[in-house]
């Protein structure tokens, strides 16, 4: 049975340290002017009880099931593999940048070296092949990132999904992302 890789970003555990974004850059040799992953920090906002809160947004590919970037690509250079990971075949790419424009999550960049779009592929070429987790997940000091197989009911990913409330970005577009977010609950009645 093919795998269906997904990820959880827990906004309550994230501290915005950017270790994930640095690990990603090092592992995938991402050029300096672009990025595959960043954590965008919003805040501080003052809560009604007087305390402050930050919100953290994982700015990266959300690995859609229903992929706008793949369906607009005229040469099938942008493709989804059997494990559900979306990546770019640089050989087939002509550089029309239709996928960059079509991505509702602004997850793609133009690689300054190959001139083809690049994006997060869950470290498919490097770490996944060796049976390791993506670089961002491995280095996260607070375990705010959880990676796993959505098809495996015993995976850590599914355990968290069944116990915590999660959401996905821009769900109204019907893209069906495989990046789940545990929303920030600070400022709620029970906090």
């Amino acid at each position, binding site marked *: 049975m093919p795998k269906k890789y997904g990820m959880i970003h827990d906004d309550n555990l994230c501290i915005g340290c950017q270790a994930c974004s640095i690990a990603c850059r090092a592992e995938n040799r991402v050029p300096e002017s672009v990025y595959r992953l960043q954590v965008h920090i919003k805040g501080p906002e003052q809560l009604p009880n007087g305390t402050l809160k930050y919100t953290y947004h994982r700015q990266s590919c959300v690995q859609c099931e229903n992929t*706008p970037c793949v369906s607009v690509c005229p040469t099938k250079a942008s493709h989804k593999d059997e494990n559900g990971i979306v990546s770019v075949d640089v050989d087939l790419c002509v550089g029309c940048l239709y996928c960059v424009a079509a991505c509702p999550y602004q997850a793609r960049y133009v690689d300054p070296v190959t001139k083809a779009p690049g994006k997060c592929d869950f470290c498919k070429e490097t770490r996944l092949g060796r049976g390791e987790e993506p670089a961002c997940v491995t280095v996260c000091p607070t375990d705010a990132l959880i990676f796993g197989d959505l098809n495996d009911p015993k995976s850590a990913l599914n355990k968290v999904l069944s116990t915590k409330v999660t959401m996905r970005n821009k769900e109204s577009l019907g893209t069906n992302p495989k990046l789940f977010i545990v929303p920030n609950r600070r400022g709620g009645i029970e906090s």
Partner: protein
Amino acid sequence: MRFIFFLAGLSAGAAMTSLMVKWIEGNNKAPWDGLIKAGALLAPLTICLGLFLLIFDLTRPLHFWKLLIHYNFSSVMTLGVLGLFIYTPLSFIYAAIKFKPWLFETGPFAGLLKPFKGIIDSIGDNPAWLERTLFLFAVIIGIYTGFLLSAMYSYPLFNTPLLPILFLASGLSSGVAASILFGLLFFKSEVNQKKCQIPFGA
């Protein structure tokens, strides 16, 4: 991208103008003949210029040929490539029929183009099937650029079913305008006083 959007619309608009004027007014009737010829000439020239500039809009221009041999039928761009495969040759054939004497007899390339005369002759002077197909594909090319943008739901402003119609309307208006300008600039002899004389009181 901006060039192909303008030039493809202009080409489609010029082809539609030329065909519509031809269907309504017929050939060799001043001043309409200048408009028909200008549209027939503009259609292949502008689409070629647009496609040429489009290649340099790609970030990997040397790989553009991969666009021609790899297809993804869920992509509007592939459908546009296939549409252009049909539209571009048809627009060339239509122009060749319109400029047959110049191309094969009086023009500077007459000797070079002699072998193709038989093909153009066999199509005839007013091939209804060719004109209708060309018109259909001119409409398709005119709306294609609109569908290209409206397919992206990352831009709510573009993601509207009105956009293809807007693109067709803007292409048609620029095609009409360019045909009039071109007709006046280069085919004025077709619109000269002698031919345009209206027999008042006759």
